């Protein structure tokens, strides 16, 4: 996970309304959390980059950019994977993604496919709202319960 990736994730987190977010990419993971009304905090676990150390946890409290206030409304909803599998963000290779950040979605709107062995699992949105964050890269393996999308309810 590069610094750019981390910056992107922090930005998604700041712009979203979720209280806590965890993203895993291979052996790296990042957990971001906040209490509403406070600045976000972040924990990075990057085992590949710090082989000499005990499990590395770095905490920081970056101030959110002044132009993007943290909303105090109900938190965004995280859509999680119901199964271990591979994440696909389009119906087939080369197709446009099911959704983009900023797209309006309704209940039943297909967000992605998780393939486990050959079991194709269409993940549908359960609420009406807007896609606030896409938290997974196309073609990546996902774990059971891993967050895939942040949806801002309408």
């Amino acid at each position, binding site marked *: 996970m590069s610094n750019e990736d981390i910056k992107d994730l922090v930005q998604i987190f700041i712009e979203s309304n979720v209280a806590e977010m965890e993203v895993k990419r291979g052996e790296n993971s990042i957990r971001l959390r906040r209490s509403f009304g406070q600045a976000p905090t972040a924990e990075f676990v990057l085992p590949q980059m710090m082989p000499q150390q005990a499990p590395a946890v770095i905490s920081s409290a970056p101030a959110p950019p002044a132009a993007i206030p943290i909303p105090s409304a109900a938190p965004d909803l995280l859509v999680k994977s119901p*199964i*271990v599998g*591979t994440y696909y963000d389009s119906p087939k290779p080369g197709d446009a993604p099911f959704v983009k950040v900023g797209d309006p979605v309704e209940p039943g709107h297909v967000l992605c496919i998780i*393939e486990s*062995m*050959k079991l*194709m699992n269409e993940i*549908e949105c359960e609420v009406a709202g807007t896609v606030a964050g896409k938290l997974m890269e196309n073609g990546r*393996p996902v774990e059971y319960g891993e967050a895939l999308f942040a949806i801002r309810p309408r």
Partner: protein
Amino acid sequence: MPLDATWVQAQLPGRPISWFATIDSTMFAASRLASEHAPSGTVVGADEQTAGHGRYGRPWHSEPDAGLYFSVILRFPFPPDALPLVVLALGLAAADAILKSTGLVCDLRWPNDLLIHEKKCAGILPQLEGSAIIAGFGVNVNHASFPSEIAPLATSLRIESGLAQSRETLLAELLPAIDSYCEILVSDGKRAILDMFTQASSYVHGRRVRVDQGDSTLIGITVGLNAAGFLMLRDDMGKAHTIIAGGVRPCF
């Protein structure tokens, strides 16, 4: 000749079967029925599909009247961690039904391609929709030949046995077999399906395979299934890999 759905229905009283001469895709129709709360075991089949498809929307060659093309709605209380094993259970069910109705022994290529002499005779595409699984089956039954682009990879039960085979008999064997193997997974657990699949498939241990994983290809020797049913592989550097999804092909 069109499939005699009345005969099949007589063998399986009480099972909802809708059979069409031509349909776009039995998956689309079964999916609609599932969303209208159709019960477990509901079957939608057709003598011809005009938009039959496999994994990633790949077209499935659905020659009129020659193959058995259907989708079945499954509603079983599978624990979430057992869901992927339904894929293996469906392959076992199809191999069992083909053996009983034709005498032909199929190999299973993980996760559930049915092969005879290394050529594919059936494909199964399960899809999870809400609490239901829609499983699409395409079995090459009476094809005399295949288009040249898939001929090296595909075979039919007729080609392999030298005899025309009854699609009705196969369907009447296959539908109860699907239920039986799903019930085994629910009642006996994952281990039972893992053991049966390991026994039935030449691909689980000691096969050199190539696995296409989108932007990369993995080559190695298979070293069994893990407890979740995923295929384990050791590459040429000795590194272990777990295959979650992807096309497994022999590598020589």
